[in-house]
């Protein structure tokens, strides 16, 4: 297979581009950016949930939560590995995260204030993530598509766990019910904003679509998420905090109030309630671990010297 011709041919045939295939620079750059951002989101996204590991109210839920956060670290590892197939290194990508030159999902800049937030993140945030990610399982870049298959399987498990957590609360005491409604009130619009700006204001959409990376528009995915979530809210018995929300039989979809995109842009650009905290936590872990990583490298180097000599 040679060069751009075969790249276009592969795209046209809906086949996967593999690391050794030639590909346009823009395709490579865009993929690296997207996979890195996705990996960073998994890593930063561990924090708001890990915040509740030591405080989980049952040992079963503690185990579920610990396993979930662990899965997110694993997702980060898959995604960094997938990005590395394009000739970048995890260390460099982490440096860019720490320097603030690469982003992560804005959703993780909100605080987890109560135990119900853990459920709301599972149900709404993972629900939105899956809606975004399922189409990526068929994206044109092979390693990314394959990583997404594994990730989506686990994410959908997490979403069910979050739903189950909330269901226990909404069927619990009045205080537990209030706690769940409060969490849904706070996480609903930030979850809607996860799909990015509306199509008119989106920047990378068209080219990504042509390259087989993005198969649906932000607004299409957002609509799909709302349509999927509304009946689940009814089962839970929580109210989605949108008085405009209603089924539109003509469109065959729910009408809903758009999230505040100005807030989204503010949060992305650093002005969310927890941006500073998340980045400081991440940088501290990295900096405080430097001596450990150095020791591991020094030890490995000495071992391989010994093996050679």
């Amino acid at each position, binding site marked *: 297979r040679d060069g751009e011709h075969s790249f276009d041919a592969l795209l046209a045939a809906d086949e996967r581009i593999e690391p050794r295939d030639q590909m346009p620079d823009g395709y490579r750059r865009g993929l690296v950016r997207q996979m890195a951002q996705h990996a960073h989101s998994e*890593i930063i996204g*561990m*924090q708001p949930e*890990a915040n509740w*590991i*030591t*405080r*989980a*109210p*049952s*040992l*079963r*839920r*503690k*185990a579920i939560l*610990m*396993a979930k*956060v*662990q899965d997110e*670290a*694993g997702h*980060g*590892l898959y995604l*960094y590995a997938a990005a590395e197939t394009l000739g970048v290194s995890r260390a460099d990508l982490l440096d860019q995260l720490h320097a603030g030159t690469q982003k992560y999902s804005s959703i993780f800049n909100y605080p987890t204030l109560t*135990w119900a937030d853990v459920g709301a993140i599972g149900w709404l945030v993972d629900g939105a993530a899956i809606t975004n990610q399922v189409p990526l399982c068929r994206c044109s870049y092979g390693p990314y598509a394959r990583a997404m298959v594994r990730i989506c399987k686990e994410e959908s498990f997490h979403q069910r766990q979050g739903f189950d957590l909330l269901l*226990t*609360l909404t069927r*619990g*005491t009045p*205080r*537990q019910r209030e706690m769940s409604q409060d969490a849904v009130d706070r996480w609903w619009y930030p979850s809607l904003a996860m799909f990015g700006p509306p199509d008119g204001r989106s920047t990378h959409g068209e080219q990504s679509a042509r390259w087989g990376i993005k198969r649906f528009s932000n607004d299409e995915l957002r609509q799909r998420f709302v349509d999927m979530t509304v009946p689940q809210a009814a089962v839970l018995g929580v109210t989605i905090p949108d008085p405009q929300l209603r089924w539109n039989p003509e469109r065959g979809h729910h009408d809903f109030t758009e999230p505040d995109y100005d807030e989204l842009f503010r949060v992305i650009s650093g002005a969310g309630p927890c941006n500073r905290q998340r980045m400081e*936590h991440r940088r*501290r*872990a990295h900096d*405080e*671990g*430097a*001596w*450990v*990583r*150095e*020791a*591991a490298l*020094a*030890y*490995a180097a*000495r071992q391989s010297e010994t093996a050679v000599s």
Partner: protein
Amino acid sequence: MSSHASGAVVDPPVAVYASRLGDDALILAQRLGGWITRAPQLEEDVALANIGLDLLGQARMLLSYAGEREGLGRGEDELAHLRDERGFGNVQLVEGQDADFGEAVARLLVFSAYQLPLYRGLSTSSDATLAAIAAKAVKEVAYHRDHATQWALRLGAGTDESHRRMQAGLDSVWPFVDELFEGDDLERRLAADGVAVDSTALRAEWSAHVGEILVRSTLTEPAPGAAPATGGRRGVHTEAMGYLLAEMQHLVRSHPGATW
């Protein structure tokens, strides 16, 4: 303090014994849970979560069994979240908050090197439930010990700084070693019946393993502690324990009777 008031399991002996081992696993799992997102690299976040999950699983089985044998209707969650500090029977080693990763490795090495022969012995217990729990856990703990061992070697023989920190971690946990092998009447009686393992008999294997690691990683065995820890099995803990429990139990204590 009568143990009832603190919520301690007091009868029958096998329930007490199971709750002690369950508390060891629970409290260390709680500490490891606090490491996640703070590890030196992602692989280690995964590994520490894995080990924490294994220990949490052991704790759940052991505490459930303790509650079952106690026969007062308490399950793993009542025992974890509704006992007072004086009602916990874990060794003090597992309570400490690690100053850094070196101390975490030292603590895990010391603990898993104790837990492995303990569970191996317990896997032939005349108590079928304890034997089954231990048989499953032996494989997990073998991995924990191996993981801690690998890191102790890397840190001990890595760089000057990692050597210094690994040594400081060992120095820091060393006063808590003796308590692991202390034993008491309850344990001796259960051991005589083939139910429990006599922990005083585990020290030889522990010393052999840990001693070898120290030599291979050029670390120095800390001097025998002037002030060895003691009392954890009787509910006497370090001052770190109260804060750990406040964090662990606050939500459950705040919602009496709720289901989660």
